[in-house]
């Protein structure tokens, strides 16, 4: 159907791109992760597994990784709790205002991530909007200091930032449910609540899985929110990677952690794809 030349022209550039900017860097990282740094701050090209054993054995890496996963899990949970009802309302009850409300959910995505993170800083800080308000109405006497520079601040910010990412696939899944299935359910005597649990929720599972994966994976690798709002107790694994590649100058260790995360993320994506397939019926 298409000429050989045409096929070459359209396939070669993306192949080169993927090789040059994705595969080659990954391969480089892969090599680095088996090397080490000498006390003289020189990278030694001797192959060993020490970085990986450190990743599992050293408390700082293990705990930070676990904390990152715990933060990501909470972000996932909260964005589902916010995103699902929002998507459900929009898809089933918004009527004529559907498009407008949809745009309102999307608009925050146009605002720079950094701006949104900073906004939370001004809200949560000890002289911030929230603390001032709480003291003004005499609910608290002193500024609450757990609001900023804590895992709480990181979870809050990431939930704010990633809820639209959970909302979108759930909304798409809900929009794809044929409305006559909802009618059929009512027709057969199911109340709106029964219809939700027995028809709508099961049929929106692929969207929920996709949305949950987005929130978890994106949060897990985040480094700006913990950097700006996390404080020492809110450090996440990406912050460690950043410092290992920077001030700490331990590229091999940084590469090992990055590849470890890559393995986690890829297996999650694989799992979520399996789940989505299992729950899709169209």
């Amino acid at each position, binding site marked *: 159907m298409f000429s050989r030349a045409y096929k070459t022209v359209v396939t070669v550039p993306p192949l080169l791109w993927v090789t040059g900017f994705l595969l080659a860097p990954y391969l480089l990282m892969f090599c680095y992760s088996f090397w080490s740094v000498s006390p003289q701050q020189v990278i030694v090209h001797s192959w060993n597994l020490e970085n990986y054993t450190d990743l599992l054995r050293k408390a700082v890496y293990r705990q930070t990784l676990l904390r990152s996963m715990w933060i990501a899990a909470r972000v996932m949970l909260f964005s589902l709790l916010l995103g699902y009802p929002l998507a459900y309302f929009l898809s089933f009850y918004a009527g004529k205002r559907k498009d407008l409300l949809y745009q309102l959910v999307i608009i925050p995505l146009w605002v720079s991530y950094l701006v949104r993170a900073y906004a939370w800083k001004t809200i949560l800080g000890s002289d911030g909007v929230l603390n001032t308000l709480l003291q003004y109405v005499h609910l608290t006497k002193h500024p609450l200091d757990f609001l900023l520079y804590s895992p709480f601040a990181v979870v809050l910010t990431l939930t704010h930032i990633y809820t639209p990412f959970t909302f979108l696939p759930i909304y798409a899944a809900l929009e794809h449910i*044929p409305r*006559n*299935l909802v*009618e*059929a*359910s*009512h*027709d*057969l*005597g*199911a*109340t709106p609540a*029964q219809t939700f649990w*027995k*028809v709508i929720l*099961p*049929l929106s599972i692929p969207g929920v899985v996709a949305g949950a994966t987005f929130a978890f994976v994106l949060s897990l690798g985040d480094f700006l929110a913990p950097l700006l709002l996390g404080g020492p107790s809110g450090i996440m694994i990406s912050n460690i990677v950043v410092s290992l590649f920077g001030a700490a100058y331990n590229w091999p260790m940084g590469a090992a952690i990055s590849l470890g995360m890559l393995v986690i993320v890829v297996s999650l994506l694989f799992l979520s794809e399996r789940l989505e397939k299992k*729950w899709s*019926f*169209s």
Partner: protein
Amino acid sequence: MASPITPVTPLTANPQTAAKPALLNIRNVAKTFGRNPVLRNVSLEIAEGEFLTILGESGSGKTTLLRIIAGFETASSGELWMGPERLDHQPPYRRRVNTVFQNYALFPHLTVEQNVGYGLRVAKRPAAEIAHRVAEALDKVKMTAYAKSKPSKISGGQQQRVALARALVNRPRLLLLDEPLSALDANLRRQMQVELKSLQREVGIAFVFVTHDQEEAMVMSDRIALLRSGELEQVATPREIYNRPATAYVAQFIGHTNLLKGEIQKGVARCASLTWPAPLPDGPVLFSLRPEHVRLAGAPAGRTNDTTVRIRGRVLHQAFHGATELIRVQCADGLVLILRTASDPEVHNEVELEFSAADAMLVRESPERT
């Protein structure tokens, strides 16, 4: 002598159903979408155990009427009564009415068996009863072998049966069917028409069947309610609606017909060059003459005592329909008549036609509606 003139059939009077108690009363139901009237002042009674077909072209409002009965739409005005109970104030899940949807609307995530058991499960019936009734319903529609299959794995005809079982298993008082056969191919469709009809006889539940196919309506129904632009044109048995169409629209919609526009002058009907005695008040009239009542001169006559009307013409077109043929004949004065004859290739170019005056049925002009 039998008068050729039959009084226009009143919309609801029906000897067959008058004796049976009314199951559902539709009273003056109207529906407008925005400023667009879809149903106007529809009143209809559905009897216990009756097979009623709502027949109409697309856009006639037949599906809207069905959706109002099911509860998916609310009427702009009018009432629905099921016995002493006002139905239109109830949500669909409280009505003892079930629907077979046009595209079946089977739940894709549930097996055939789970689909059929859905209504009983949400009604929280005991598990043993559910299992028993589901098995019975699947057996009735011959789908037992597919109990564990997902809907996507079975054919359209089979999905159709499952949808039927899923509705009937709840023992509704009224079953609504929204063009359920329209997605099936012609053969399967004819087969399902027969099956559906005998199933209805067997379960004794009143069926309200929506279709745009007049043949299907004729084959299956006890009564046909013909909708046109949101208003009922005629409600009658298939025989009555065919033999005594109330309006020109009905006569044309159901089967083929010749519409003869003419005038009555002093007890004589005049239509182009045709005349026959008709004891009617003077004024413009419209007659419907079925093609099978027009015959080639010399063919054996159906009625012998009546005035026979004769006209000469030239054959325009001959369409073979198997057992019969439809022949279009150009007569004098621009009049074109269609006649149905037994299949016979020996038709001359120039023919003489005749019909009994009694077979020309007076019909009302259908009013313009938009």
